[in-house]
């Protein structure tokens, strides 16, 4: 997969490395800016209040 991408990038090894770096950074940006903020509330790591409003009330 990554080998395939590498072979399809243009330029010599340096240019390819630079493009790869930009792609990786773009991916990290998308993850931090959009994917993780969306995923976080769906995961049970960060509820701090009692009852929390989501659970069935006692």
């Amino acid at each position, binding site marked *: *997969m*990554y080998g395939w991408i590498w*072979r399809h990038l243009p330029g010599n090894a340096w240019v390819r490395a630079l493009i790869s770096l930009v792609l990786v950074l773009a991916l*990290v940006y998308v*993850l*931090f800016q959009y994917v*993780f903020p969306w*995923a*976080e*509330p769906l995961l*049970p*790591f*960060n*509820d*701090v*209040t*009692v*009852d*929390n*409003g989501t*659970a069935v*009330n*006692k």
Partner: protein
Amino acid sequence: MARTDRGRGRLAVAVSVFGELLITAGVVMALFVVYSLWWTNVLADREAKRQGHAVRNTWAQKGPGALDTKDGIGFLHVPAMKNGEVLVKSGTSTDVLNEGVAGFYRTPVKAAMPWDKQGNFTLAAHRDGHGAKFHNIDKVKTGDRLVFETRDVWYVYKVFAELKETSKYNVEVLDPVPKESGVTKPGRYLTLTTCTPVYTSDYRYIVWAELERTEKVDADRTKPAELR
């Protein structure tokens, strides 16, 4: 196709792609940990600092003591947690708490305010990520002092009980007279809630304190002895 691929079966290619996907998943999960435990703190601390400055600016401008709960009602100082001041705002929704502040409860049990004659001033904040303002709640011991600072008054509380683990549905801890802490009479109480154990939210950690004394804020905003 590169020369090295010749002779390799489809199976080998599939296995190699599968392996790379697994590695990718691992890297993404590691990044999520970095995001949760570091990046959300950076964002929340920045936001809390900005809002804290705004509140202090409002206080500095002389005027009627109108209470704007939207911008925050004051600052909580917990010397035992060693995390400076925590801005306190209204509500305990994710939106509020993710700003790196502590929120006072509006539901399921409405919090009393520190200046009320009696009642329970109940707060929640994150244990990890988003400012992690109550991360060191386990360092708070019976006898420790907590100070809540408003524009005009320092409210000094003394911790009298901790509940190291309780159900997340245990809303009785927020009662005006929280019986589980051992008290039986109405008083001016302060309750801190956050999640426990660290990095998860299976249970809740509770700390109760009672108002010990109040002190007028002077012109220099001299800190009370407990914070010096």
